[in-house]
């Protein structure tokens, strides 16, 4: 109960509180503190889980997501303290919008935690929708032409996606209706899963199509991805980190829940082929898009699409190793990509631009930022000694013997995307110094914390963690 209060109640209360506080330092502290409390609360779930209820459910699958969510939320709040301070100084944000920012930040965390923890598919939908709304607000916070365009695009595409997801949710309820009967039971995970084998498989298939496209929009799967790069590029960098590190995961989580449902219903189509197809399309297209990017944040946003493609592919291939790999890849991607965005945020602040043409030789002018960026890109490319190597190893090696051709395509995508990222990295991190060289007050702790975790995971995965992931993977079928 305490944990629930910490994870859900604290952010909500903080959001309310922060909307009245104008002082930058104070609100930054409250923001960090609230995020920390919810992170600590989420850790409590590890030792004690509340009993599944009508509203909330904590099980082996979502606990991974919840802890990750709260952790990245916490580190991002630390990062955003310094980042937003700089934005205030440089006049890009006004104190009024600052109040709005912090309140929205906590609200966003609340919505995402709620979506993860909800036991009811309707409640989850509502939470995802609210999360979308709050992030839309954040994306448009700079009020520049580009920011508003990005927010608007995000909003429209997100709304359509959300609407489709709702239609899918209604269809799931309809499928459950003859078996479970009327009432709230028909939307409860536990009840749905228990009776899934009796559902009408054809109806579940149809529902899954809508859910896949609906939540897939929020995951950023091609061809519904268009909002994602612009939203990442035009919003404040902490929000980019949260979008890539958390929001995509939340949508993915929702999709996975429904996948479990389908897996439990023997007559339903295997969701694998659809997920594989969308995953491959995302990986390949995003990899190609990387080549022509000029904006650094947009670059890494496309990289998120690519990674999401890999993850969805992996869950689509499934099998105990495939699911495990997917979970691991998702966790590692969250940590790595947010670390990259932290670095990128500072870089963009110091250079006064997000255009990569105006950055160069970072390892020389800003060794800390430069090398962490190098490490981040190395990690995101799935190279050792980082954790994404482990997960990509599992993804590729486990799926190749099952679907050789498809895996070959995936590998092609990996190679293409790495080629593009490395091409940029070579110019940004190395080469002659370009752009501003003023020193930066970087909040390096979050970057290092994330990279250290990813590094540790590459070298050594704690057996309990893996056992837990394996159990979660076995739930996924």
């Amino acid at each position: 109960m305490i944990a629930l209060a910490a994870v859900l109640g604290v952010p909500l209360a903080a959001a309310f509180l922060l909307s009245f506080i104008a002082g930058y330092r104070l609100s930054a502290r409250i923001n960090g503190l609230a995020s920390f409390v919810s992170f600590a609360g989420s850790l409590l779930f590890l030792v004690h889980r509340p009993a599944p209820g009508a509203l909330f459910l904590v099980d082996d699958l979502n606990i991974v997501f919840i802890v990750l969510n709260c952790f990245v939320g916490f580190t991002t709040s630390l990062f955003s303290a310094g980042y937003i301070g700089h934005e205030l100084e440089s006049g890009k944000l006004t104190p009024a919008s600052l109040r709005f920012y912090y309140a929205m930040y906590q609200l966003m965390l609340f919505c995402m935690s709620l979506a993860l923890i909800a036991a009811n598919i309707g409640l989850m939908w509502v939470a995802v929708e609210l999360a979308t709304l709050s992030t839309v607000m954040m994306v448009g916070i700079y009020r520049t032409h580009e920011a508003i365009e990005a927010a608007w695009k995000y909003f429209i595409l997100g709304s359509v996606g959300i609407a489709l997801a709702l239609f899918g949710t209604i269809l799931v309820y309809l499928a459950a209706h003859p078996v479970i009967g009327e009432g709230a039971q028909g939307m409860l995970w536990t009840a749905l899963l228990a009776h899934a084998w009796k559902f009408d498989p054809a109806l579940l298939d149809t529902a899954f199509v809508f859910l896949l496209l609906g939540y897939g929009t929020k995951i950023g799967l091609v061809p519904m991805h268009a909002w994602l790069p612009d939203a990442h590029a035009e919003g404040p960098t902490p929000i980019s980190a949260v979008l890539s590190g958390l929001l995509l995961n939340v949508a993915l989580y929702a999709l996975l829940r429904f996948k479990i449902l389908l897996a439990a219903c023997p007559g339903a189509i295997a969701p694998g082929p659809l997920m594989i197809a969308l995953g491959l399309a995302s990986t390949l297209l995003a990899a190609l898009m990387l080549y022509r990017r000029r904006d650094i944040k947009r670059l890494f946003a496309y990289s998120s699409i690519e990674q999401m493609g890999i993850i969805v592919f992996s869950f689509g291939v499934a099998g105990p190793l495939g699911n495990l790999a997917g979970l691991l890849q998702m966790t590692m991607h969250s940590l790595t990509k947010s670390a990259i965005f932290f670095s990128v945020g500072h870089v963009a602040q110091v250079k006064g631009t997000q255009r990569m043409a105006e950055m160069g030789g970072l390892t020389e002018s800003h060794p800390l930022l430069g090398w962490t960026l190098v490490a981040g890109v190395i990690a995101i490319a799935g190279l050792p000694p980082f954790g994404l190597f482990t997960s990509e190893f599992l993804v590729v090696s486990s799926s190749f013997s099952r679907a050789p051709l498809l895996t070959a395509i995936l590998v092609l995508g990996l190679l293409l995307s790495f080629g593009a990222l490395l091409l940029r990295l070579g110019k940004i991190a190395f080469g002659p110094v370009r752009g501003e060289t003023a020193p930066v007050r970087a909040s390096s702790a979050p970057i290092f914390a994330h990279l250290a975790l990813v590094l540790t995971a590459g070298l050594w995965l704690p057996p309990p963690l893996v056992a837990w992931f394996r159990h979660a993977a076995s739930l996924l079928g």
Partner: protein
Amino acid sequence: MILVLLAGTAVLLALALAGAVVKGQGRSLYAIASFVAFLSAILALVSLPARPETLVLPLGLPWLGWHFRLDPLSAFFLLVVDLGAASSSLFAIGYGRHEAEPGRVLPFFPLFLAALQLVVLAADAFSFLFSWELMSLASWALVLVQHRDRESIRAGYVYLVMALLSGLALLLCFGLLAGASGSYAFSAMRLAHPAPGLAVLALLLALIGTGAKAGLVPLHAWLPLAHPAAPSQVSALMSGVMTKVAVYAFLRIAFTLLPIPPAWAGLLVTALGGITAVLGVLYALMQHDLKRLLAYHTVENIGIIFIGIGLAMVFRAAGGEEAAAALALTAALFHVLNHSLFKSLLFFGAGAVDRATGTRDMERGGGLIHRMPQTAFFFLIGCAAISALPPLNGFVSEWLTFQAILLGPGLPAWGPKIIIPVAGALLALAASLAAACFVKAFGITFLGRPRSREAAEAAETDRFSLSAMGILAVLCFLAGIFPAAVINAFAPVSRALLGAAMPGQSHLPWGTIIPVAAARSSYDGSAIFLLILAVTVLAVAGARRLAAHAVRRAPAWDCGFPDPRPVTQYTATSFAEPIRRVFGPIIFGAASIVRMPPPGATAPAEIETALHDRLWEIFYDPVAAAVARLADAANHLQFLTIRRYLFFVFAALVMLLFALALQR
């Protein structure tokens, strides 16, 4: 034993961490690394004939762990790795003094060494690939040491992309071998019996994966870019050792993890090896950057090694030809060792020249034999060894390879009968072109008159660098005159891989090698050396006794028209011109335009030569162009209207619904 070796690796990793924080040139760091590598080399040598040892560390994936295994194959390659590591660290003690930004070298150099050791010891797919990629990464960072240089960045780019290609190909290969259940340990893979089709696919993937790392044509393109860009001790490691680690990986997969592949696979490897050897040396001949020339020679030598490996595969597949297979494999292994020795030596020499003159461009060298006599001497030994001149080591391994080739026509099938002699012709061509190339490399750089002020004022390099070169030169020499001892030391490896070894050579007098039968062929390195020595003494003594002793120094004769200006000398480019004219039109699409002034005019004549890198044009440009085209096409998607994006969603939905409707 294996624990001790891993402790050494751990020391190197600790050095890498220390390198990240230490200030200064890190001489003690190099010294420790050299010492550790030296000890490891001795341990590896000792454990060559020992029984395999295994160890599992609780790292990485909990249900798998990191498996390590020290068997003769890994011990042999560990020896090669550590010899290279010890000598290059020793070299770096002196050479590293000139490093402008040691902070970009010191953390990665020990990491690179450690990764090289780990690859050889790893005994499961995960730890193997982990170390493999780590090796690529560390060397990539070292390639980028001169990071302001546009060329370096390009080299690093091409290098790492190819390295990733190699890693992914190996990953797919291991994925096939491990199966869906994910039995990643090599011991488990050995027991699995994949279907023949899958086994061949795995072999081809392994060939791509290791070939891209070793530098098999056409996957070699990164090598001549990346190797020269790194500091010389690293170039030596990359050329001399890392490519050998790739050879190790191929042997490991093809000979121990897979069932016996069909003969045609061996022929494919042989043919690729032959083509690689010739193209590598031809490209080398066209270079005037000393280190790039050496890098292309690495391609050539990898080709020679793969000829040997391919032959071993062919003989192995034929059945009943274990002795021939053992001969071919021994030849390949011998060449692995040799190449690691003399290529490191040559890169050290090139590094010393680079530091002394400030350039790697041979056209700015000349006359260094007077300024850097010791370096010149060691470099000459290296040149002679790599040109396969008796009595040095390079000749022995090429001779052995040739003996293996001569056994090929004895096979009943027609494929080997035809392809193997052709490979022999290619090998012979490569060997003679290599000699030509090293006449050029040594002659233009060290002989003649200085072509630049820097060359004229060069100074001899430091004693650490010299001792590193000296040790390697002595090793080249010893391996050349005592080949039998070396072959006997390799016996456990080929026994482990093939179940047979080359017949022991130790009972023969003078350390003679007799690969098959005395009546067939034999070579006696030490006797040849003694003969040459004796005859030379005889000639010198005879000349002393019979000839006048007077020596007079005078200007060069030059047919009576000596020109003191150094530009009248032959350059690297003009030296290679005859060979370019012979092979150029086919291989390089070379075109020369000569502009002669009209008769009587005093204007200088001009010649312009354009070379095409045909391999790059055939294999890489189309890929790059295709990616660019696709990226341009895809890029339109960034600039559509919201309505269009909505249309995509709409279309996806309608399509999926259609699919659902059709499904029922």
